[in-house]
């Protein structure tokens, strides 16, 4: 059987603006994770182009992409992806050690309401707490873009709401452009703008008036 070429994304064209909160909504297989990976410099598209502040991410070398992630992007993953052998604070220092102008690790943990759990290992934290540590880790470098991949996907409704609160707070207090990808329609409520993805294309774009910019 030969290799079958599958296009995860086709003709996607949109911009992200400083300080805004965008939700990319889509069902499983709609191409939203691929889009997030491309936005975060984890992957490069086979066709088309991505620009960041006048520079091209599609033309960037691997070292340039690493540098882009190191300086500008914060990631929040569905399964938190904390390093299990490091405590909450150490997971943050992993980032603050290589960032140019980071928040102090403890301040970042305070921001997500976990100032008292600095010395706990991931295994000693609940799922919601682990995700908040992951958010703190993502924002500790003061990124220009915060990319969240199903940040509430592994959490119950109540905990999920708490995590979204934290993301919203970070977006407001630090003014970080935030993109959340999710299949959960209720998450869309917190966004300034909602892009709906389906079959690798942007099907619709909706502006939430009440959440429009401060």
């Amino acid at each position, binding site marked *: 059987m030969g290799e079958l070429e599958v296009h995860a994304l086709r003709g996607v064209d949109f911009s992200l603006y400083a300080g805004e909160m965008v939700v990319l909504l889509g069902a499983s297989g709609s191409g939203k994770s691929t889009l997030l*990976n491309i936005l975060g410099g984890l*992957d490069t598209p086979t066709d088309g182009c991505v620009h960041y502040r006048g520079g091209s991410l599609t033309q960037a070398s691997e070292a340039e992409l690493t540098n882009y*992630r190191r300086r500008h992007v914060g990631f929040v993953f569905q399964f938190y992806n904390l390093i*299990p052998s490091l405590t909450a604070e150490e997971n943050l220092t992993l980032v603050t*050690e290589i*960032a140019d102008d980071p928040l102090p690790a403890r301040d970042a943990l305070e921001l997500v309401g976990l100032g008292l759990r600095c010395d706990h290992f991931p295994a000693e934290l609940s799922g919601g707490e682990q995700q908040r540590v992951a958010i703190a880790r993502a924002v500790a470098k003061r990124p220009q873009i915060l990319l969240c991949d199903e940040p509430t996907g592994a959490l119950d409704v109540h905990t999920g709401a708490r995590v979204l609160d934290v993301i919203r707070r970070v977006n407001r207090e630090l003014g970080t452009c935030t993109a959340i990808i999710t299949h959960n329609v209720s998450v869309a409520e917190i966004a300034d703008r909602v892009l709906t993805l389906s079959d690798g294309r942007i099907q619709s774009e909706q502006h939430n008036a009440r959440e429009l910019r401060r």
Partner: protein
Amino acid sequence: MRALTKKLLRDLAHMRGPALTIALVVGAGIASFISLRGSYETVLAARDAYYSTQRFADVFCELERAPRALLDEVAALPGVARAQARAVGTGRVLLASLPEPADAKVVSIPEHGAPMLNGFVLIAGSMPSTERDDEALINEQFAEIHRVQPGDHLDVVLEGRKRSLRVAGLAMSPEFVLSMASGAVAAAPDRFAVLWMRQHAVESTYDLAGAFNDLTVALIPHAQPAQVVRALDQLLGKYGTRGAYTREHQTSHRQLTENLMQIASIATLAPTIFLCVAAFLLNTALSRLIELDRTQIATLKALGYRNRDVGLHYLQLGLCIAGVGALLGMAFGSLLASKLVGFVVRFYRIPQLTFELTPALIIAALSASVGAALVGSSLAVRSVVRLAPAEAMRPAAPPRYTQSAWSRFVSARIAPASRMVARELSRRPLRFLASTLGIAVATGVIVLGQFQADAMKFCLDVYMLAQQRETMAVSFVQPMATDAVRSLQSLPGVRDVQWRAVLPVRVRVGHRERIVNLVAHPDRHSLRPLLDEDARRVPVERGEVIATDMLARVLGAQAGDTLLVEPLSGDRTPRPLVMTGTVSELLSLWIHMHEADFARWLGVAPMATEAHLLIDSDRVEAVQRELNRMPQVASAARKQLLIDEFRRDRGAIGPVFATVLTLFAATLALAITYNNARVSLSTRARELASLRVLGFSRAEVARVLTGELAVQVLLGVALGMLLGRALVSSMLASSELEAVRFTKHIGMHAYALAALVTLSGGFVSAQLVRRKLDKLDMTEALKTRQ
């Protein structure tokens, strides 16, 4: 401390079981390197320093008698820097602590000052008086064994005359690093004494006034030793020379060199094996860790860590493990080396022989372990670097399994658990093969270690007992007529007398030559039969000229070739001898022929240089006393004593090596089996937990995991037996000695022990992993991603 460094340390602590076993294998490699190479270099360096400070000669020659005036001619020969003439004789030392007299070599020293060549170190006492002829220095090893002190008096027999000598001092000399009479096979420190006496005393004792019978020569740099030897032989021909020889053939030096060569060959083989296995284990353990850490690696990359940072992180893990191993190895290796050097000091009398962990050794050991770590880690680390961050964010695809017609056929006939084992093994054929090979290496190394101990045992208990069937061996001062030898039968208690003639000869084929013994066997030689390496008798028929196969190889001769044989005593005219065959003997280089052929070839009546006596056990001492009184008897030695000394000299080191090698190999077996089981457990935890959830019992799940291990161990042990044979052959080939050869005989118990140790290693590993498996939390294992 950086967060990544903390992660490194915690990862290490987390994988401490596998990490420790790998470190132990590295440690075993480094310990074997430090102890063997260290001992070798220590002895070599001390020997060379000793030779140089004591001006050890380059060429030696013993002769019947030559005028001292000839020395100027010797010194004028091209290539000769300095020549020293000595008067040398043999004698016996009578000691209450010995059942029979010890052999003594009496060596003259100049009337004033130290010898020009072959000097000695005065350990205690003072030089013999120039005024007296009854004072001597005695070699310190003999003195130590028999508690002889300066000022003591020794009873000696010199030239058939009993005398009392005053011990002026104790000395040691590079000429006698190993206490051996010329031509002896083994050192005999308690039965061989060296007595240094003033020249006038030795000359008067041996009737050598104005003459010498021993020559030592130092060469100028870049001289051709072979040319000097030839020139000396020509010059000294009419003075009854026994043939000049270079340092390589000097008894003590040759034995020492051969022993050192043996150590050097294992010093390369053993560490190489261990470090290769360590590299493989490191690769397996790191690959598994990286497989489990996929998400973490991707996260680090997503956070902005460079490929180089993440790769280096895992490389450091490998380096840390190897580093710990190297430290353990150096500590244990130094301890072992001190013990080993302490052990060899009992045989090799060299001043300042103490092991020192030199910077060069440390650098070599560290480089070797770093090399092993780099080789082992680099393949695994390459996969870290290659892992695309986005790809790593997704769980790894389920492993691919394929079914061939053959596997379908087999699968249909075995239980599902066995099917899982079979598929897992066939899915990673390289890892399976490498693990099996590793286990085979462990098994093989034990076989090798046991072989060394066994070879000695075989030499002593089978070979020497089968070859030397007499109660007492007698050697004569001069060749004796066979009828005269036969008359020894008349001594009360003597049940049988047999004899043979042993003639030292220089044998030449083309430009190659060796000094060997030519043995003439009479029809009846059942007390000293000719044996092959498996201790089977080889008859010596009329018309046959049989050489040791090693000699044939050294000379490049085959059956049918003509050897040019020059007797080194009596009429020295070289004469041809056609070699008719070869025999694989364990000891020494010989040429064998029938007594009648020998007499005809030399043109003399049948004669004997030694006799072998079978004596009633209650008459042995009486016969010995009788023989010691006979002026024509040079020595009469009881076989048991000879065997004892051989056992002490060479036999003792065998079991030490065997124990250490077995210990190291057990570590190897445990490390390989434990690591494999751990890798299987951690990469398949989810699968195994699923089985438990589906209702499999703990024992059934354990069977899936240990089944793999069992297949590897059993196959590894079987292969290891074959590998053991190969290792033995390779060691024999790389340390092949001319004078003494090991049998290729490997005892059944060597195989049995090797199998037992390896299987035990597998069993212990299975139990350790079983404990982990029993603790496996089904729900947690299922929750884990991947």
